[in-house]
């Protein structure tokens, strides 16, 4: 499950091009190399912030976090005084690895199967995507990439944004079964929301039929079911809670219908979209349903006339676990700005930090290895130039599995080429 330890890098570079660059030579100790980030404001998420804190990293794993920790001899010591250290951010609903250009190279959908529960994205992930370094440069180290389209779109996967092959990147697959119960899904269910819920209910009953009568099914002694064997099979982990159902619903009545559906089948529901979720916040809290939303969504449509900017604030005050997404699938780097705006519209700062770290980790059962700076977790960390959500701050270093991950992208190279050609600054 854990990304493979990448060995053999001889140095860590700290600092973006416009600030002082510190290069440290590697100690050549045998065994896991130890790194110490010292002097920063550390936000572990699992506990209160630590001023002048230390994070110790051994190999790909966090060894310890705290104040006045003893730094082992031979460790790389990176002075991050004046900087802020957070867990790498987790984007709960992305397309990273599956799209190159928004309108023409999308590898996350099948158009000939509206119930594509068996659709795995693993083989379509492109670790060389230009979107990956750009996303990392926004402090995002893990994404939940999702299939799109249809009624049941397929299987979500959790990807680490580092590595040369999908094996390096894969954190968890499948991470959820993805479906839609919004207006866009109507065309796959006879043209109405009534059809959507009816079709979903029939599908889940058929999956139960299949589960309880597999040998009859295989012997062709069962009535025709509403999905293929592979798709029915893929739905089974929903019934014992092994996988959550990530379902899009926005209107209050659709959210309530989704709740009824998940209660009926005892699914673990993750609500995506949730434009009117604030209207049923206590109900969602009681049902333990996490909500993945875009905190900037406030334009009224018939999928949510009551949408408003304090949706995230109301939900999290009511005790609902909220995670953030960015609606523009090509700009997942804006996750930090989403969090900042959620705070501007009333969410507590701590809750907003949770919404990009531990909440998505918990929603997708990744919290044993991700989402906070705690001993034993994967060393996915971001060193920010300042307050992480502020528009003026940016990651100076992104560490994934204990290794510095490049935040230079084709955008950086284009900028440098033309900035220098036109002689407008820079630090040449």
């Amino acid at each position, binding site marked *: 499950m854990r990304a493979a330890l990448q060995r053999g890098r001889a140095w860590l570079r700290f600092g*973006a*091009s*416009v600030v002082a660059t510190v290069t440290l030579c590697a100690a050549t100790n045998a065994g896991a190399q130890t790194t110490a980030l010292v002097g920063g404001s550390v936000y572990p998420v699992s506990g209160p912030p630590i001023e002048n804190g230390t994070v110790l990293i051994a190999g790909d794993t966090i060894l310890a976090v705290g104040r006045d920790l003893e730094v082992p001899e031979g460790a790389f010591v990176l002075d991050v005084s004046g900087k802020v250290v957070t867990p790498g951010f987790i984007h709960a609903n992305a397309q990273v690895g599956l799209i*190159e*250009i*928004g*309108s*023409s190279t999308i590898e996350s959908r099948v158009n000939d199967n509206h119930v594509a529960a068996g659709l795995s994205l693993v083989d379509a992930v492109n670790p060389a995507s*230009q*979107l990956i370094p*750009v996303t990392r440069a926004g402090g995002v180290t893990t994404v939940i990439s999702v299939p799109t389209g249809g009624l049941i779109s397929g299987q979500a996967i959790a990807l680490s944004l580092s590595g040369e092959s999908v094996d390096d990147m894969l954190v968890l697959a499948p991470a959820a079964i993805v479906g839609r119960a919004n207006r866009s899904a109507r065309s796959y269910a006879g043209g109405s929301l009534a059809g959507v819920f009816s079709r979903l209910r029939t599908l889940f009953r058929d999956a139960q039929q299949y589960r309880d009568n597999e040998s009859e099914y295989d012997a062709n002694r069962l009535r025709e079911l509403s999905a293929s064997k592979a798709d029915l099979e893929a739905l089974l982990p929903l019934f014992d809670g092994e996988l959550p159902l990530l379902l899009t619903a926005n209107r209050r009545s659709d959210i309530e219908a989704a709740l009824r559906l998940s209660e009926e089948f005892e699914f673990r529901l993750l609500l995506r979209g949730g434009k009117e979720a604030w209207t049923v916040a206590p109900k969602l809290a009681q049902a333990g349903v996490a909500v993945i939303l875009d905190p*900037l*969504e*406030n*334009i*009224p*449509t*018939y999928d949510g*006339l*009551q949408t408003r900017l304090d949706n995230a604030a109301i939900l999290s005050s009511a005790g609902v676990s909220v995670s953030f997404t960015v*609606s*523009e699938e*090509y*700009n997942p*780097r*804006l996750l930090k*700005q989403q969090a*900042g*705006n959620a*705070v*501007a*519209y009333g969410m507590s700062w701590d809750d907003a930090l949770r919404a990009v770290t531990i909440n998505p980790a918990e929603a997708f059962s990744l919290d044993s290895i991700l989402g906070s700076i705690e001993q034993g977790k994967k060393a996915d960390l971001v060193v920010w130039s300042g307050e992480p*959500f*502020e*528009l*003026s701050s*940016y990651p100076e270093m992104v560490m994934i599995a204990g290794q510095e991950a490049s935040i230079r992208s084709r*955008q950086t190279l*284009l*900028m*440098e080429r*033309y*900035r220098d050609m*036109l002689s*407008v*600054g*820079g*630090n040449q």
Partner: protein
Amino acid sequence: MLIIWPGCTSSERAVSRSSADWFLPTSQDRIQYPSTYEPRSYGPVAIVNATIMTAAGDEWTGASIVLRNGRIESVGTNVDVPEDAAVVDGTDKFVTPGLIDTHSHMGVYSAPGTAAESDGNEAVKPNTAHVWAEHSVWPQDPQFPLAVAGGITTAQILPGSANLIGGRSVTLKLVPARSVQEMKFPGAPYGLKMACGENPKRVYKSKGGPATRMGNMAGYRDAFAEAENYRTLWEKWRRDKTASPPERDLAKETLVQVMKGNIAVHNHCYRADEMMQMLDLAREFGFEIRSFHHAVEAYKIADRLAEAGTASSIWADWWGFKEESMDGIPENAAILTATGARAIIHSDSGVGIQRLNQEAAKAYYAGLAAGIPLSRDQAIRWITANPAWALKIDNVTGTLEPGKMADVVVWSGDPFSVYSTVESVYNDGWLAYDRAARNPAWRTDFEITRGVE
């Protein structure tokens, strides 16, 4: 103020009724769809002890601004607060000009966004210079008051980008209205929407063309060449009046006004090489391109754009959503500005328009991080003075200077912080938004049930 269309001369209008028919003014000579905007009355206001960003070179702390009769009466650090003014405490607050967006489809692609509200692209032929965006604008679009809550006081509403020549834009004051005429910015000239690249060739490749970029260029050239002939025809008729007037052609009329400099060209164009082609086209037909829009590659030709005097209306960091947007970089505005070209941050989005200040902030900080010298005043101009220039309304709005329209935003803190929100918006001195108010100043008919117990 009425817009009296060029070509309409008062002497013609005064021609005696006893003259022959062809001496009568043609429909072309009558007043065309005038603005009926009226400033709302509001008492004098003094915002005191605030940080004021004028977008005219200054950022003062402990400063005050007085609004009276829809105008800025005085502004600065040494302002006498008139006795009759309502005083607003600006301590810890920031004041900027009302924000201006050069690129919006509010009203033509209204919420709730069903096919019934899709009125932005007359995608039936590549040249629809005859359509006017204002004839699609629905003043009850609930996106309007959301934009006001983000500090927008003025926006240019454009037709979409399906066509080579999409039609006339209209510049609106964002105030509650029953008709678009009541929103039309008094005295603002029309714009012409043109589009390069992928969109027209995608829409028309199986509808008779254009199917290629060279087809796009040929399409613009044909349209302007025909309009040139039309102009000659009318000029000859107006001179000689020896026969019936030529038949009116609304599309050519608009293009003639472009060539006469009365309509400003706003050109959707992403790629640097295509922008250079469009500058050549403008030279061929003797018009100027006021602003390129979207212009994700403007930074590659910043020096050329500076020479041409053409502005670039751009996003802070959109990229990658289509092939022609692949080379978008967050430092675009910074490189343009440092090169001496005019940059504008626009939205093209009902979401983005609500936080144009944050877009400017991101572009500003990206520039600083890349070591490109910039000032806060230059960055605030991206969303105030520069768009006012592009819309040719910079003589009346876009900066905080005495005598300008009282288009003013009060922010809870630095507008370049993600945590700052709009506290109040004055449009022509009228309080168009007040965050603390129980009832919003503007609730559209569409949302009339919203929040009602």
